[in-house]
């Protein structure tokens, strides 16, 4: 069983906006999904050591030229040279 409060708390942790009209359906879905996921909790415990397929491909930590700032900020909502922190979230916090 998952309560409305728990779903809202998860949404807040995940920074998700949930509309009032979505809530009832979402709680039902989450209940179904969590009971499906619970099979993992009830599985016999196991001791395994992670063994990757390969060792990966780490590069040296060297500085390489990156993209110009104007290019990187092309997709920002505001065309100044700074990030604008979304004030909606700040207002929700207070």
């Amino acid at each position, binding site marked *: 069983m998952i309560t409305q409060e728990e779903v809202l708390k998860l949404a807040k942790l995940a920074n998700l906006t949930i509309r009032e009209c979505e809530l009832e359906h979402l709680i039902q879905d989450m209940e179904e999904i969590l009971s*499906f996921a619970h099979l993992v909790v009830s*599985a016999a415990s*196991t001791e395994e050591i992670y063994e990757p397929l390969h060792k990966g491909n780490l590069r040296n930590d060297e500085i390489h030229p990156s993209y110009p700032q104007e290019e*990187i900020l092309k*997709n920002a*909502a505001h065309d100044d040279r700074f990030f604008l922190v979304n004030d909606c979230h700040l207002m929700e916090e207070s």
Partner: protein
Amino acid sequence: MGRISELQRGLIQRDFSCQELTRHYLEEISRKNSTLNAYIKITGDTALEVARRVDEKLARGGQLLALEGIPMTLKDNISTRGIETTCCSKILQGYTPIYDASVWELLQCQNAVLLGKTNMDEFAMGSGCETSCHGGAVNPHSPDHVAGGSSGGGAAAVGGGLAVYALGSDTGGSVRQPASFCGTVGLKPTYGAVSRYGLIAYASSLDQIGPIAASVEDAAAVYDVIRQKDERDCTCVGGRSASGTLKNSLRGKKIGVMQELIETIGGEIRTALENAQRIYQDLGAELIPVTIPDLEYALPVYYILASAEASSNLGRYDGVRYGRGQGFGDEVKRRILLGTFVLREGYRDEYYQKAQLLREKLTRSMKFALEACDMLLAPVSPTAFERGSSRSAVETYRTDLYTVPASLAGLPALSVPCGVNSQGLPIGLQLIGKAFEEAAILNAAWKLEEAFT
């Protein structure tokens, strides 16, 4: 014979020019895309520009590279510099990458002719392409059925003759399942064989880019171009050549038949798979029944881990950089909430950590099974379902049962057509190989394809 080599022969013999070939595909798109909804963006002008360059090269007597001049598509989660890339999500609408994905860089070096970006489930989360903000892609074999997901647009484009090949991404089956629904070949390479740089992340420990093509030869040709080591993806070590061994004999090869998966699949698919097994026996391969312990945990383990990684990866769309802080669809919200739940303090050990251990256990079982044989044979999925069918989230998740084991184990796997059902919908067969042995499963798939033609 592969479609790519056939078309390239036509280009070399001057039966048609690359611009004529490209125009043919653009006309097919304008004729059929309103029905199939395979493309969500068409890049006709740049496609014709590349085609013109290929024609000039041919006129100078230049040799064609493996994929040169061939019209193709990319899934909308593969970054393309200067071309909007949205993962079919409202949250990324208007986002234009300033860099190319490594796979797209490699294809541009081949003068690949990009026709456009293809439809997908939002952020690759879905099994029917129906969570796309553009609506779902339609199955080219039946207008009432889905093209599959999440790379449904690419599979519909290739299956419907709107592209020669497509690149998709496969996290839990998103290349193999739509490929099987649309009667095409789909390959999910070994984790680490193909660079993920520029692939917009869903679940980073599972995501792999792979080709969808009309034939095994084409899929192998595309794989051979994109399987390059990449410094910009530290998990990418590159893969091994697969095209040269497609026609090898299967005599003495051992194919493990995954019993649990075959037993749960519907009658018509099982019959098609049994028929394929007989073909393999006639070709001299040995079939061995294989059971994999703990296979029943694969699905919940996959959904816990993929959702945990998604909740972390999608945290970047917080409205600070480019997202609007709103606009995720229902399925994305459900997975972010599940991911947040399983990573939360107090729940992390019993869900996330436990799922990691079970993943490792399953991986070992798969590898152990592959010590006794050369590859595993299994269904890909039930056949395509009807569009708009109302199923619960978990009912949809359950159809991924056949594709997630190879994803969790990081093993290469492909889907190859092996018949049609009574409604005329294609049936796919899955082959799972040893790590970095794409060549072996492509060889076996080529032989099956040959037996059917």
